[in-house]
């Protein structure tokens, strides 16, 4: 995969040297071999800081509404990140002509916290790479190969869109994992309320899920408003319910399922699970999927006269 890493660096360098791209957003080496961090490359000679490995989890589209408004921005992106960008373009938050997309075929990325439960310690890991059998983990005590279901992030296991939908340069090949799971949504029908009540009672209202979400770009979030006060600041399950339920409604039909909200949550609330259910409901009812370049507007910004009618026809 270092081959693709080199190509990414070359493309980024070329774009920056060309002059019209002012910054290239990508992933750089993180504080440990199983981590990466977003980097903003402004000089062509810094392009070799860009990396591409199974730990490139961040959805970098979140930076675009602020950066790509008045200047052209290069961005290294996975297919899911690109679907976020398509949403932002449809909602007129960024312009396509302000983007230079280095699109990557994807084999899924790794949940670092899932690695530790295997035969080795996380601190011994020196490198990660994809192989045809799964994920190769190089450690100081030798190499291990993990199956996808043991290490890939949940959202990657249910992902079926591994080719970039729009791009300026395309690198790498999409790989469908052999042991893909259909869906991870648990059957919680009876106990849902108690389940979510317990989950939301953990919420500390740090709003990290909102900050990391490319679809949450509002300049003033309802949660920060004092008048009207939609949700109080106190960290109770009930107020957290109001926050999360409203956020789910706001991203319904717009969430592309990158799962960043769930990854970033410091207390481990599976918010992406709810978002996936909403996305499924939107797909079932309106045949609409967020991040589709053929759509013109979000699902709630359009209607058809023959739409499904949720009204109760009493009498």
């Amino acid at each position, binding site marked *: 995969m270092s081959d693709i890493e080199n190509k990414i660096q070359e493309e980024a360098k070329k774009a920056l040297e060309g002059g019209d791209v002012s910054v290239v957003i990508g992933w750089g080496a993180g504080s440990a071999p199983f981590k990466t961090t977003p980097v903003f490359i402004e000089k062509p000679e810094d392009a070799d800081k860009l990396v591409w490995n199974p730990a490139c989890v961040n959805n970098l589209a979140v930076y675009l509404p602020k950066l790509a408004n008045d200047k052209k921005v290069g961005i290294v992106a996975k297919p899911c990140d690109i679907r976020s960008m398509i949403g932002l373009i449809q909602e007129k938050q960024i312009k396509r002509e302000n983007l230079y997309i280095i699109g990557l075929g994807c084999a899924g990325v790794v949940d670092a916290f899932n690695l530790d439960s295997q035969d080795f310690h996380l601190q011994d890991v020196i490198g990660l790479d994809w192989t045809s059998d799964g994920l190769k983990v190089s450690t100081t005590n030798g190499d291990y190969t993990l199956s996808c279901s043991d290490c890939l992030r949940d959202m990657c296991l249910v992902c079926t869109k591994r080719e970039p939908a729009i791009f300026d340069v395309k690198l790498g090949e999409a790989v469908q994992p052999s042991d893909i799971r259909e869906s991870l949504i648990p059957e*919680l029908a009876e*106990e*849902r*309320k*108690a*389940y*979510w*009540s317990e989950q*939301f*009672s953990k919420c500390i209202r740090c709003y990290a899920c909102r900050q990391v979400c490319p679809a949450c770009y509002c300049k003033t979030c*309802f949660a920060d408003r004092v008048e009207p006060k*939609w949700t109080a600041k106190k960290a*109770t*399950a*009930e107020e*957290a*319910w*109001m926050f999360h*339920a*409203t956020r*789910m*409604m706001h991203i*319904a*039909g717009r969430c592309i399922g990158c799962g960043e909200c769930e990854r970033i949550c410091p207390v481990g609330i599976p918010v992406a699970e*709810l978002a996936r*259910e*909403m996305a499924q*409901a*939107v797909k079932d*009812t*309106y045949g609409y999927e967020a991040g589709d370049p053929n759509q013109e507007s979000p*699902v*709630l910004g359009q*209607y058809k*006269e023959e*739409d*499904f*009618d*949720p*009204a*109760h*026809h*009493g009498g």
Partner: protein
Amino acid sequence: MTQETAVIENTTQEAAAKKEWQPTILGILCNWCSYAGADLAGSARLHYPETIRIVRVPCSGRVDPMFVLKGFQKGFDAVIVLGCHPGDCHYAKGNYYARRRIALVKDLLKSLGIPEERFHFEWVSASEGNRFAELVTEMTEKIKKLGPFEGVTP
């Protein structure tokens, strides 16, 4: 507590205990059809339970899903949203947008485990005063059977 206030307290408690529990229903009504329908029910002297608290909005398209969520969070036993029939919107298409939103609110409430009987969405026109009175009666009976809403996070 003085003797007088204690007497008052006891009397009100006794009265409350004797009285049958009544649900409190939040009704969000479009100004042009459903609110006029409710008005017609009143001017026609139709009887319906005094369980509904009406919020008048300019159009069902004004109904932010947060109104419904907030209603449940604040402990209403049920929430009703009423708007003009499709094709009858005063603003031509507000209720079409509302229809999509409400469909998704229903899905969200289902995902969160809020009983679907507690949320009701219907088209009620300005001439359907009867239907409005009927609807509030039906809803009140249904919620009485279900009992008080135990909150969004019990």
